Structures are given as C-alpha cells and as structure tokens.
C-alpha cells in the first residue's frame, strides 16, 4: 500500500468532497482510518472546502505576515447553503482573464460545476479556479490583484 503523504492527502480530499464520513482501508498489513470531524451540534456542516489539504502549506511568510494563518481564525458561522471556495495555492487573485476583460463572475452570477471563477497566479503560472458546485455567487471575498494565502476564502457560493 502506498502510505506516502500524497496518497493520504488524496484520501482526505476524497473524504472531504464526497458524502461519506468515515473511510477505512487495510492492505498488506497497513491500515488507514479517516473519520470526518463530527460536528458538536450533531448537524452536518454544509461547508465544502475547496481543494483543502490536511497539512499547512510550507510557506515562509513575509516578515510582517500575521502570526495566525487566515484558516486558523475563527470564522463566522455560515448560512448552511453557502459553500466556500478557497485558494489552493499562494498567489495573486485575478477576477478577469486580462486587465481589460470582464470579470469571470459577479455577485449574483449563476455558476455550475466547472465554471471558471477566477485566476490565481503564482510565478506566471495562471491557475483557473473552477466552481465545484452549482449555484449563485453570494460574495466575492477578495479584490482584483490582491495577494492571497493558501486556503484563503475567495468566494461564497449559494448552492442551489
């Protein structure tokens, strides 16, 4: 069995994005058991984390960077229909494909699975961030040209 970090990350991502809450795999004497955090209230949280990885990104921040990473801050409780779209990498947020082009989406735009929402650029590598759900853009959390951290919330999508 491949027990490398990438393999475990993939399993966690799979668990995170599909409906199951527990996964146990045993092969060649190696056992991996993953259980989703059980909510205190007994309610299943509706928040889907976009491309969430289980370990903090190994990013050395600028000297003035806050000691607390954005994902560790206490976030306000979300409307149960709202889905967060998070940045999978550190980079610069672009709302449009080029400076003179229209934004990919606006507040109120209808999106489906695969709709391009924005670009995150790092080192001239332009990453299209696609919606993983169908619904309506409820809020755009960042501004065009703004640097974003790993796992920072970019959009709130009201899932239909």
């Amino acid at each position: 069995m491949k027990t490398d970090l990438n393999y475990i990350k993939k399993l966690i991502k799979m668990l995170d994005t599909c409906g199951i809450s527990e996964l146990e795999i045993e092969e060649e004497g190696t056992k991996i058991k993953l259980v989703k955090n059980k909510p205190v209230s007994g309610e299943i949280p509706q928040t889907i984390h976009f491309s969430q990885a289980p370990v903090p990104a190994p990013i050395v921040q600028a000297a003035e960077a806050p000691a607390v990473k954005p994902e560790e801050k206490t976030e306000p409780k979300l409307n149960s229909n709202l889905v967060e779209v998070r940045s999978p990498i550190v980079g610069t947020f672009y709302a449009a494909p080029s400076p003179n082009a229209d934004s990919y989406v606006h507040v109120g735009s209808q999106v489906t699975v695969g709709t391009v929402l924005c670009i995150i650029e790092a080192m001239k590598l332009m990453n299209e961030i696609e919606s993983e759900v169908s619904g309506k853009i409820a809020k755009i959390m960042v501004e065009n040209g703004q640097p974003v951290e790993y796992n920072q919330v970019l959009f709130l999508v009201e899932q239909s």
Partner: protein
Amino acid sequence: MKLDIELLESRIAANTFISDIIYIPEVNSTNDYSKNFRHKDNVLIVTDNQVTGKGRYGRYWESEPEKNLTFTIKKNFNIEPDDIQSVNFFFTNFTLSGINEYLKSEQVFIKEGELELKWPNDILLRKKKLSGFLIESDILEGNFFIGCGINVNQKEFNKEFSYKTTSLSNTFAREFDRTRLLIKIIEVINDNLYLFENQEFEEIFKQWMGNFNMIGKEIVFTDEKNFLGKAKITDIHRDGGLQILINNELKVIYSGDIRILYQN
C-alpha cells in the same frame, strides 16, 4: 522559411511523449487554441505566425511570422497544489537545456551562465530576454497548457523592449533552423520526464536552481499595483516564491516583475 512539419512528425511524434502535433499556419495564441485539446494529453500546438501572442496577464508577446518558435504543450500532470510550480521549473529549465544542446549541435558554444533563468520564468541569453513562458492550468483537472515563445531569427524588436530583448540570430549573427531547435527541446524534455513520473520534485527544483544565477543580485521590483522598489534577491522557495530583502525586511513575492540591476 516555414516549419518542416514532416520532419517534426517523424522525429517528435514517433519518438517522444508527444502523441499529436497540431500545426496551424496562423493563430492568435497557441495557448488559447490549445484549450480545444483540454481532453487530450501530450499535444504539441505549434504555429508559424502567432498574431496576438499572450504574455503575462494580458500582455502581448511580439513575434514576426516564420522567424521564431511559438508553441504550446498540452500535458496532464496529476500533482498536488503544493508541487504545482514543478511544472514551471521543469519546462523552463529543460527548454534552456534544449536550446543549449541545439546550439552545441550547431557548433555554437557559449560560456556557462550565458543562458540563464530569470524569475519567474524567462530564459535570458547574455542578460537579454530570449524566451518567455505562459503556463495556464486548472489544478483540479490537472490540465496544463505550457506556452513558450523563443526568439530565433527575428532581428528587430519593438523599441520599448529592444534594449532588453534578443534572439539567437541577433546574438550569433546567423540564422538558425527553427524545426531542429524545436525537435531538440522536445527531445530534452522527453528525456527528463522520468523526473515527473518519479515525483522527483526536489531534483527538478535543484536543476532549475543550477541555472538561476540571481541570488544576491540587486533588482527593481514592480508589483501589481505598480509599486517600484529596490530590493535584493535572497532566495527562491520551492513553491515559486521569490524571497527579497526590501527596506531591511524579508518578503516573499509570488507575482510581479523584476529587473536586474547589473553593475556594469
């Protein structure tokens, strides 16, 4: 002279990872066109005339017809977001090696360091820009569109850029065979693809760093809001971050432009 597509087919499609070569005599942008092949893997899209080539974030890549190499490789990589910059490190570094190998085969020898990488992903020849990349991806699907432009036989450049842009023919005062240059680049990339298959990302980064000579160099940095600052490059991180010392503070930047301040 146009690219020799028959020769490309026989040398590349038969012997390397490239399974399809799409030649278009004229196209606005090979990267945009390559999006038509989102569901295919290992496709090379190449043109003799890229009319409105794309640079970073809507910028224009200037190229005269039948003078340069402008192509896009569409390839799938199943990698974690943490390792995504390995694609950047890999293709820029091995394109540089391919150019160097081709020049050697043409009996053109350059000193070590004369071909070098500039952050974020340009190739310089004797301190002037020879080649630029624009890589587009959708992380979740693993599609990568690796766009590359190399100045080969173009002699005149837009005045605004001419002082910092070069071509092989401007540097060595002769014409070069674009088809054979492209074949060599694809062959070198092909010979090193095992590094990806084995997930040797540390090695890919190490090799990139081997052609990056700018640590310790003074630069002028321009960010998205056009802030200009004098800084010094102190390190590069494996996620692509450029660590600079600016106003006595260490900062890591992920996008923007740098201009090296040479002492001569």
